[in-house]
């Protein structure tokens, strides 16, 4: 019942929002809808009854596909992240105005429905449906409300991910015909018997789709442009929640179905991830644009998570679970600050900013906490996650952990450099008459800072929540 509500509430409210022409009405309505979803997701956390957490209905009996949903700890955690992200985004961008607001908020809510569906589906064809349902609203959002080069950039993003999803579809069909009962159910997929050669082949069909979504080097080229050109509210969702689709896909589908292939290719993928981390961190140092810097820093973080997943250590996997949630929170916080600066000053370039801390002390304080979380300082939430992930990677290979560790230093370099250039130093013409951020932004950021500190000191709830998923995955 709960997973159905998580999908249906945003879906129905989203479709209704298409017919709201009044900007204020659309904002209020979608904020309300997202808060209701959040309440349902919160209820899910405290529910253990299987009846409430699953749904099994007939959908396409002829094809062997069912409308079956279920939630375990990992699903609950990611649904919570999705449910938390939308009200935060709506709240932080409450003052932004959009052309055709009804359509904007409608597409946002549809995207939420798609994301929720991805995290709760336990039927491969249904999973594929939601996977696409999350993508198509994103395409229209970025292309309609994005920056100057939005059309080409978003198109590249769309084609890239679409190729990935088609390969995923081929992979799903391939496994489907190998299952004894010709079904798409997750459990049948887990029990399918594949030879090693078949695994090596189909593994890549699945993995490329997820790698494009994450993105993992060398499939990352769509990401910085798309993050830069999208309207910031959408970028927050793309980087905060949508990249988790790729990680989730790997943990839920790739690891249990292709154990032999994972053992064969883990080294290659970890090396690619680590290359991506260093490469993205080095590029981030040279950026002059807040949005691009955050985009590259995000690639580096995702790279670490992917490497930790493939190191197949329990402790690393636990770190990934924590970090999926924390990265979502932190990166949304960073984007909110970037958006606040851009909305007020009309520029995102470091070279045109400076001394903002004198004008906007509140914003500066909150950003510094965000940045410290981004470089995983102890007492912030990211520290626990990164520590566990490095621990896992260290057990897999000392050298890999060592090389990946360099990226921590690089992260400190580019992050602190950004803070210094934007907030300290001399005021520039653009920042001369700046005001502090408006109260709704400060309120949202303050909430995020509380989450960061609480989870930094006491991460046990997230660990407990996802314990069952970690063990289930590693048991395979």
């Amino acid at each position, binding site marked *: 019942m709960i997973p159905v509500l998580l999908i249906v509430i945003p879906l129905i409210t989203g479709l209704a929002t298409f017919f709201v022409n009044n900007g204020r009405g659309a904002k209020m309505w979608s904020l309300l809808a997202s808060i209701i979803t959040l309440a349902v997701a919160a209820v899910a956390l405290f529910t253990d009854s299987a009846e409430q957490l699953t749904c099994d209905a007939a*959908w*396409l*009996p*002829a*094809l062997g596909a069912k409308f079956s949903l279920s939630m375990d700890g990992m699903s609950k955690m990611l649904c919570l992240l999705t449910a938390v992200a939308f009200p935060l985004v709506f709240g932080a961008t409450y003052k932004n105005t959009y052309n055709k607001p009804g359509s904007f908020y409608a597409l946002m809510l549809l995207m939420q429905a798609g994301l929720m569906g991805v995290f709760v589906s336990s039927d491969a064809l249904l999973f*594929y*449906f939601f996977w*696409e*349902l999350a993508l*198509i609203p994103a395409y*229209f959002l970025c*292309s*309609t409300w994005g920056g100057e080069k*939005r*059309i080409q950039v978003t*198109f590249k993003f*769309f*084609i890239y991910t*679409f*190729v990935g999803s*088609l*390969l995923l*579809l*081929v992979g799903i*069909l*391939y496994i*489907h*015909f190998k299952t004894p009962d010709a079904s798409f159910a997750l459990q049948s997929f887990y029990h399918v018997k594949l030879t090693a050669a078949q695994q090596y*082949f189909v593994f890549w*069909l699945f993995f490329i789709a997820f790698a494009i979504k994450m993105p993992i080097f060398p499939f990352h080229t769509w990401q910085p442009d798309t993050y830069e050109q999208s309207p910031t509210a959408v970028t927050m969702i793309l980087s905060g929640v949508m990249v988790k689709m790729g990680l989730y896909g790997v943990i839920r589908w790739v690891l249990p179905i292709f154990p032999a292939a994972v053992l064969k290719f883990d080294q290659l993928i970890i090396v690619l991830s680590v290359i991506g981390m260093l490469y993205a961190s080095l590029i981030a140092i040279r950026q002059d644009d807040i949005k691009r810097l955050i985009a590259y820093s995000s690639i580096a973080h995702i790279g670490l998570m992917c490497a930790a997943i493939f190191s197949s250590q329990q402790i690393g996997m636990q770190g990934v679970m924590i970090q999926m949630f924390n990265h979502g929170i932190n990166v949304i916080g960073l984007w909110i600050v970037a958006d606040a600066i851009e909305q007020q000053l009309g520029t995102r370039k470091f070279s045109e900013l400076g001394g903002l801390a004198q004008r906007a002390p509140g914003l500066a304080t909150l950003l510094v906490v965000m940045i410290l979380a981004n470089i995983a300082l102890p007492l912030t939430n990211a520290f626990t996650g990164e520590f566990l992930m490095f621990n896992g990677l260290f057990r897999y290979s000392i050298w890999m952990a060592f090389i990946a560790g360099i990226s921590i230093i690089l992260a400190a370099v580019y992050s602190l450099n950004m803070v210094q250039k934007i907030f300290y130093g001399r005021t520039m013409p653009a920042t001369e008459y700046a005001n502090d951020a408006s109260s709704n932004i400060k309120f949202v950021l303050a909430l995020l800072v509380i989450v960061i500190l609480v989870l930094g000191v006491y991460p046990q709830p997230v660990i407990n929540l996802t314990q069952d998923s970690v063990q289930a995955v590693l048991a395979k």
Partner: protein
Amino acid sequence: MNAIIVSAVWGVIMMFCSFLVKNRGSYRHIAAFGLLTLLVANILNVKGILLFDIDDHNMLHFSNFGLYFNSIAIFSTLVYVLLTGKEMEKYGKYAAEYFTLIFFVLCGVSVLSAYNNMLMLFIGIEILSIPLYILTGSDKKNLKSNEAALKYFLMGAFSTGLMLMGIALMYGGTGSFQLEIVRAAGKANGTVLSFLEVTGLLFLFVSMAFKVSAAPFHFWTPDVYDGAPTVFTSFMATVVKAAGFIAFIKLCEVRMVETGLDIDKTFGVNWQLLFAILIIATLLVGNITAVFQQSVKRMLAYSSIAQAGFMLFALFSLNDLAKEGILVYSVAYSLATIGIFAVLVKMKDFTFEGFNGLAKKQPVLAAACTIFLLSLAGIPLTAGFFAKYYMLASVIKTGSYTWLVIIAVLFAAVSVYYYFRVIQAMYFKDGEASTEEITPSFKTGLVLLSALIILVGVMPSLVLNYFYF
């Protein structure tokens, strides 16, 4: 049998209407009514109620598969007439004759979906094609329309000639035109076929490839589709093309599946490899050329070649999924293409720039158009997804040739490029898209059609349950 007779009778009735009924506007209403009765007559046939009992000497065999296809073809034509019937009245003096010709085409379709004898195949193809040559040239004052008609006629005559030669050679090899005797001859001889039969089959193969515009026999398609009046292009690209595939699949089935022999070695020719090459060539030519078009109409012509490439998968894999799949593909592809052409007819400028800013001026038109294009591209939640799904699944089910599927999905991604160019023009670019007058009833029709496409995309079982045979 019902559909063949009723469609021919309605063709004659429409002919008389052209001088008995003076009001031009009422022709399409009469035709729509005729199509409705035709649909009912065909459904009665499915239920086993025959309105006519004629001894066909086993030259026709009415299987459920063929009859379901008839229903699809008649239903698509009905949608087509309701949406765009008004446009047909613009060309020439005698609008009723166009409806006459359309009924005769449907008669040909019904013969093709039921033939059991190669002579009936030939007759069906001819009944189908000759009205189309006339429809293509119906815009008499337009040089391009005339050129297209002549080109279509010459190419059509050429491929029909090849088909006749093929049939004659097959007759020489097996001594019969009946499909089951041809099949039995294959079984008796074991795995080796005579030279005459192999040559005959190859000729038939090439001529059918002409009819469904598979590369490298596709050269007539873009010129004919582009030159013909847009309303008639819509009909040619949908119902007629799908009928060609039904005829083709019946022909392939005879020799490959029901003989129960190893397909690869049946004729000393590797037919599957032949089809694989045909598929790759068709996908390559259709998709890559469509990318470079400046006119939406011409883009759709090439995209129809690309779609044919996907439909060829049904002939390649020839299993139960393929037969269901070709029916689902016919529904999905026909409805979406009829819809997109209905919008195209209303546009004053057929180039991509002509669509700039359509979403602002005609939001309903643009939204419907988007759904049609998404369906053609095969995006989930639209009917087009299940069409492609079935085609890919039918090949993967055979257990080999997964590489062919991967090539196909890469081309499907290319197709997204040109379909989305139209969406980008409509929604994200500024411009003054000018259209003819749009009536509320036309808008309602488009909305209903897009709703149908989404319904089939979310719950295909509604349509599929009807198919199970």
